[in-house]
């Protein structure tokens, strides 16, 4: 007869007190599969920890966002934010769905080209573009979003030298009523700097000003901030037409849409507080449609949202290494994934769910990663069923930023697999090997011999 699943015995003292008005619940249902693929089988086959990407979820989320905006605005174009997740397979799914590429470095630019993006479907953002980067972007007819005057002058010089008219937009920062105001990127709207840049471009005629861009912040929990930003950009576009008889072809609202993750310190779950695509679409579309821009010359709306499109599609499966008691009796759970690969633990109260069945009993614990570092905290406090060494866990909504900001620290990064729309699993990034890391190193001749 098959033996039964063992849950670690657990006793919890019951305290009478004021109930939690926010009603945070414990974990509830195990996550035993993703898109029909068994988590434990994935771990046996590919190892633990393991990043798992659901192609089906990417496509569904993208289509929902696109449809939501297209229901409200006539011309909408998404550009996949490479920095959010630039694994080629992930980028290709977005490109197949019709997304352009939005890149912020030469590395990302070349990745986009290799992913088959034509130059004229690549938006080049970011403060650090070398003359060589700009030259290639100009030759490829990419859209260069100018971040500062030094860059503007560089592009003007290159345009003269190359005898080309680069397609550019300016990045505009502004007060949208949220704190902190993001003013380190681009030209400021309120102090007239944005107009100064526009005047230089349009009076000079060396560059083709085709767009206006803004990126007002990250994880924006207020959709209204986008309404203010879109109104200000529409106002700029309208007055550019009036002053120079020049039509702005697109308004790029950047990214920053929140996912359903819960920020650290938040009282309520992100599921309840993050705006929906509907909220963002309504805020932006209404601002553009209600602006002074005539309906027959409305610009294209470009969106560079990354996090809200990919977070839900990513999961991290891992394993409990040990259960300990701290000096004050608190429980601590040590898992095999740390902040080195789950960078977003610094920002979010990640949802962590057991991958096997459990009873309704729970206990409160701290959850630490495997690094020999005090900062390696996945959750300061988490309420989970009693776990034991070898149990598996799934961290949900980790598709954004982790597979780009992860660190090769004291260990090697694990595999990333994608479950395709037919439920077939593919390795899309292999686990690192010691030789991958050591291959970049060299030891000077005089250090090669050591005394034994």
């Amino acid at each position: 007869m098959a033996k039964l699943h063992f849950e670690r015995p657990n006793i919890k003292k019951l305290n009478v007190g004021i109930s939690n008005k926010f009603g945070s619940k414990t974990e509830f249902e195990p996550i035993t599969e993703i898109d029909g693929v068994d988590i434990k089988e994935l771990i046996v086959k590919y190892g633990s920890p393991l990043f798992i990407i659901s192609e089906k979820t990417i496509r569904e989320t993208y289509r929902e966002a696109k449809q939501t905006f297209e229901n409200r605005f006539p011309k909408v174009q998404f550009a996949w934010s490479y920095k959010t997740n630039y694994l080629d397979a992930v980028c290709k799914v977005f490109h197949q769905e019709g997304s352009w590429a939005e890149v912020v470095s030469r590395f990302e630019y070349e990745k986009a080209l290799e992913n088959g993006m034509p130059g004229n479907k690549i938006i080049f953002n970011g403060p650090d573009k070398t003359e060589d980067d700009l030259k290639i972007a100009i030759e490829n007819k990419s859209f260069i979003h100018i971040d500062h005057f030094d860059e503007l002058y560089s592009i003007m010089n290159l345009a003269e030298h190359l005898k080309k008219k680069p397609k550019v937009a300016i990045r505009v920062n502004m007060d949208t009523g949220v704190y902190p105001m993001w003013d380190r990127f681009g030209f400021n709207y309120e102090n007239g700097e944005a107009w100064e840049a526009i005047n230089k471009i349009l009076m000079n005629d060396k560059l083709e000003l085709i767009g206006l861009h803004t990126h007002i912040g990250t994880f924006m929990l207020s959709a209204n901030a986008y309404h203010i930003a879109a109104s200000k950009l529409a106002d700029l576009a309208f007055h550019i037409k009036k002053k120079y008889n020049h039509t702005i072809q697109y308004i790029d609202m950047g990214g920053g849409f929140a996912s359903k993750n819960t920020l650290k310190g938040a009282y309520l779950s992100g599921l309840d507080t993050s705006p929906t695509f509907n909220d963002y679409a309504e805020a932006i579309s209404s601002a553009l449609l209600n602006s002074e821009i005539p309906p027959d010359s409305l610009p294209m709306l470009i969106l560079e949202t990354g996090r809200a499109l990919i977070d839900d599609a990513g999961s991290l499966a891992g394993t409990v290494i040990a259960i300990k008691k701290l000096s004050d009796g608190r429980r601590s759970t040590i898992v095999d994934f740390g902040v080195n690969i789950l960078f977003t633990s610094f920002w979010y109260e990640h949802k962590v769910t057991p991958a096997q069945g459990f009873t309704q009993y729970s206990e409160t614990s701290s959850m630490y990663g495997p690094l020999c570092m005090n900062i390696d905290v996945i959750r300061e406090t988490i309420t989970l069923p009693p776990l034991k060494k070898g149990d598996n866990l799934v961290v949900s909504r980790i598709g954004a930023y982790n597979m780009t900001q992860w660190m090769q620290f004291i260990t090697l990064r694990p595999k990333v697999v994608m479950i395709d729309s037919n439920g077939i699993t593919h390795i899309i990034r292999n686990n690192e090997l010691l030789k991958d890391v050591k291959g970049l190193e060299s030891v000077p001749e005089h250090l090669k011999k050591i005394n034994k």
Partner: protein
Amino acid sequence: MKINKKIAVSESGFVFDSSTGDSFSVNPSGIEIINLVRENKAEDDIRKILLDKYEVSVPVLEKSLSEFLGSLRIAKIIED
């Protein structure tokens, strides 16, 4: 090792200490262990019974059992 006489244990996992008024919630495997102690089983016997019944390695079970019995002693639910 025996159960404190002032302790009442329900099948659903509710444990009540009538001498202090403290109450506890215990999961099913914990209740099973308390009941085995009530049947005067020694720690070694309990270990064997659980190993036969559950899919668990010896080290994980030993650690879990020893820690749980320690918690029961601290809570004065069992005494030696």
